[in-house]
């Protein structure tokens, strides 16, 4: 929102530099968005909730309250218009729901000419071109009060009536900028003699604008369904000063002030006679009140505001106090504050005008609550440290991938691109491309890992219950990953076996999967199996290892051989595969020194021979 400073000064006589004024606005919630430049116009950021900040007066009001300066409002034209005869009136019919209010006035015998300098200069500083006095006034009042108005030349109306209705399918309307629009029934228009002449709340048509030849015109201001305007303006790619305001919820009562002000200026600058015409307002909005308890103000701010201070601030913001006790204020919410919903919004207004920089700081003093950090969070962090200590580098990759035909993959309904149209089923999908990027740049001998969420669904039925998130660790390398897996399991103190169908199992429970270059562990299952501390031995014990060289009579996976060895030996600590090249298999068996390991070794060899026809030659 652009605020030309000399325009601002009409309503609030502030004697600060542009920089200081910008600082005040920033504190109020309107941050300076662009550099000050020559300091004549402030370009402020606008947030979506305050429609009154799209008006100079709305901004001036807040500034006046903050700076404790009186706000000076325009007089407006309070008198009722002349009574028009029946054939002088323009009948207004409303046939669509989107119009909440539509008020019109007629001006006859006006003189269209150039606007005075003060008017055109202000418009220009704001960023609007000067057209003629009447058109300029409608723009001026729109920027001043935040309520759009429109003027149409009576002689150019196709018929002596105006009808609000929804557009017909493919109905055409040419805007005053010369663009032809093709409409549909979701848009609503003013038509005259059946012809659409205005796209409601958005833009006027080419036919009926006020020009140098105009002598009589109809002025209107209305209140419309902002959601409909939002949809239509986006569809038609129209984004102008009117839409900026009408696509937000405005209060219908804003119409009165805007018309009054416009009337004042029109009579002053264009002369003529003013006649009331109509006011379609079937459901007048009643003002809302709200109560602010002093205790609530104290609770949220921690500051001992007095009732007097609270009242002063709210009154400066145009709240009207309707009831007052020693503990609370009941106020009528001003029509332009469509954002105030709850009592705490009044607290917000008071603190805002008090200025946040004046709020003291106070440390938390209530007792520290119970820790509710989930154990899995801590476990996964520990896993990260284990992997890093083994020399692996962590990556974080995106969850969105290209969709495919896998039945359990979750597809997005409104993805922007094909590359990001579904959710990943595994971490390996992305880690593989990280590795290939590395390889492209000549980085090899690297182990990477990610701990993250993967997603799957049970069925096509997209209910919340059939959608699953899984927590995984995946590690990947361009060489054999099994040493890393072994080290991780060793640190976690989880015994495991590898099966020929590529599962990692513990006591027959699957806790992960693997292939030569990557493995994936279910972190939740792993956590339940992992003890907290790696065992530390406080007394040295000596082990003895024997290497045995085996010859297989037929291809046999280690997962068939290991159980037999384990079963045959009571005190075996460890069996490792040193070399495996069919038909030879070289194993190292390790026992505690103080056991009958020779006996156990003999028993193992006997069983291997009888059960799997494996012969041996001790080394």
């Amino acid at each position: 929102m652009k605020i030309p400073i000399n325009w601002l000064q009409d309503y609030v006589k502030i004697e600060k530099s542009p920089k200081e004024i910008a600082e005040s606005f920033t504190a109020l919630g309107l941050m300076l968005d662009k550099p000050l430049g020559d300091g004549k116009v402030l370009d402020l950021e606008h947030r979506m909730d305050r429609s009154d900040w799209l008006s100079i007066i709305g901004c001036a009001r807040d500034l006046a309250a903050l700076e404790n300066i009186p706000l000076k409002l325009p007089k407006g034209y309070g008198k009722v218009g002349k009574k028009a005869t029946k054939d002088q009136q323009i009948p207004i019919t409303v046939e669509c729901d989107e119009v909440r209010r539509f008020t019109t006035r007629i001006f006859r015998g006006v003189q269209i000419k150039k606007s005075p300098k003060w008017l055109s200069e202000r418009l220009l500083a704001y960023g609007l071109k000067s057209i003629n006095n009447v058109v300029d006034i409608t723009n001026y009042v729109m920027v001043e009060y935040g309520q759009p108005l429109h003027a149409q030349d009576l002689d150019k109306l196709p018929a002596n009536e105006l009808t609000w209705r929804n557009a017909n399918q493919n109905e055409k309307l040419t805007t005053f900028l010369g663009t032809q629009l093709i409409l549909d029934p979701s848009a609503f228009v003013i038509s005259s003699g059946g012809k659409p002449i205005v796209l409601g709340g958005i833009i006027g048509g080419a036919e009926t604008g006020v020009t140098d030849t105009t002598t009589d015109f109809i002025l209107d201001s209305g209140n419309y369904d902002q959601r409909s305007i939002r949809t239509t303006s986006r569809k038609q790619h129209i984004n102008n000063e009117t839409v900026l305001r009408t696509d937000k919820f405005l209060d219908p009562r804003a119409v009165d002030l805007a018309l009054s002000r416009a009337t004042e200026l029109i009579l002053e600058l264009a002369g003529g006679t003013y006649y009331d015409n109509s006011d379609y307002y079937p459901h007048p909005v009643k003002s809302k009140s709200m109560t602010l308890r002093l205790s609530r103000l104290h609770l949220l701010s921690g500051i001992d505001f007095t009732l007097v201070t609270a009242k002063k601030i709210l009154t400066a913001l145009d709240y009207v106090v309707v009831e007052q006790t020693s503990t609370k204020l009941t106020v009528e919410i001003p029509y332009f504050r469509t954002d105030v919903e709850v009592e705490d919004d009044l607290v917000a207004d008071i603190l805002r005008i008090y200025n946040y920089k004046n709020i003291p700081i106070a440390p938390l003093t209530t007792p520290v609550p119970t820790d509710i950090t989930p154990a899995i969070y801590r476990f996964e962090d520990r896993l990260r440290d284990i992997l890093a200590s083994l020399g692996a580098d962590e990556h974080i990759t995106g969850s969105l991938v290209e969709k495919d035909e896998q039945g359990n993959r979750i597809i997005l309904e409104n993805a922007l691109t094909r590359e990001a149209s579904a959710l990943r089923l595994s971490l390996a999908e992305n880690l593989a491309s990280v590795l290939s990027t590395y390889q492209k740049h000549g980085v090899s001998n690297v182990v990477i890992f990610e701990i993250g969420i993967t997603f799957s669904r049970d069925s096509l039925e997209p209910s919340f219950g059939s959608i699953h998130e899984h927590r995984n660790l995946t590690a990947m390398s361009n060489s054999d990953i099994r040493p890393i897996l072994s080290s991780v399991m060793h640190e976690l103190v989880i015994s495991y076996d590898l099966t020929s169908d590529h599962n990692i199992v513990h006591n027959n429970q699957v806790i992960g999967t693997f292939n030569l270059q990557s493995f994936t562990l279910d972190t939740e299952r792993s956590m339940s199996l992992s003890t907290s501390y790696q065992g530390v031995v406080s007394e040295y014990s000596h082990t003895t290892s024997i290497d045995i060289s085996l010859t297989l009579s037929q291809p046999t996976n280690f997962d068939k051989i290991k159980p037999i060895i384990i079963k045959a030996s009571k005190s075996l600590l460890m069996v490792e595969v040193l070399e495996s090249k069919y038909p030879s298999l070289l194993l190292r068996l390790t026992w505690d020194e103080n056991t009958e390991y020779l006996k156990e070794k003999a028993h193992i060899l006997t069983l291997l021979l009888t059960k799997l026809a494996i012969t041996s030659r001790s080394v």
Partner: protein
Amino acid sequence: MPMQNKITQIKSEYKQELEGINSLAKLEALRTKYLSKKHGLISTLMTSLQGLTLKDKKEIGPILNTLKKDIEESLSAKSNELDSQSQILDYDPTIPASPQHAGHLHPTTQIIREMNQFFRYHGFSVGEGPEIEEVEYNFRRLNLPEGHPATDLQDSLYIHEPNILLRTHTSSIETRILSTNTPPLRVVAPGKCYRNETNNSTNSSFFYQYQGFVVDKGITIQHLKDTLTKFHQFLFGDDVILRFRYKYYPEVSPGMGVDMQCRLCKGEGCSVCKYRGFIEVLGSGMIHSNTLRACGIDPEIYSGYAFGMGLDRLVMSKFGISDIRKLYGGEIVYK
């Protein structure tokens, strides 16, 4: 006696020669000269013992043995000395070694850990929530009813319209935790969020946020200001200059924005801070009474504050990465 004179002579000759030894090679030559079995001077003397009388043998023998022993010991000592000297000569303390390879944690993990450390110190738990969320937790309980512009369908990624989507902010973790726990609560929640954005160097369809909230009896905006002040000092240094201002967010009232003064231009305005002089860091406020109520907490008994910030810009600036796609696309290599 000639024999004894010979021994004394050899002894003093050896002593002189030993002093001049400055290399292991010369030492070996000296050893050979005196102790070699065949032609060494000591061996030769030992042989010539045979021709002596028994009385002379008994007298000379031990002297010769002692000399042999002394020579052996002094050679050994000299050898050790030369060894350690050569080690000392080889040792150049000014040669640094190359770093050994270690694994690294991702920059975002590192920053999250640092932040968690700060908050754990202040009694916060770390909370989590699902990435696929219900509209109820992602919008409704955050005071964002249907039709609110912030819930525009085009901004969220839907699994199934209108109710199941990928969470658009970590605030959904807040509503979940508020709905399933009773106060007092102090929680921070880092997490991945998703929006329907086209990817470029500063925007990604997924990004990290860091959320925090406190709900207890008597929580005021002063507590919020205090926590945020200390947090910013932790992140950016004790000399950070902060600006607190009113800012609107649907899920809080009063809402508050926190900016920090641009270090480069000290508030004057430059390209880094988009000429504003300040850089927006995070949004915060007192949790909206509608939100507390929707989560089953009575706002007349409890009050609370909440804050949320985007993490990626901070991570990228701390690690010198300019493109968010590289941060999460595997195009970072750990040095």
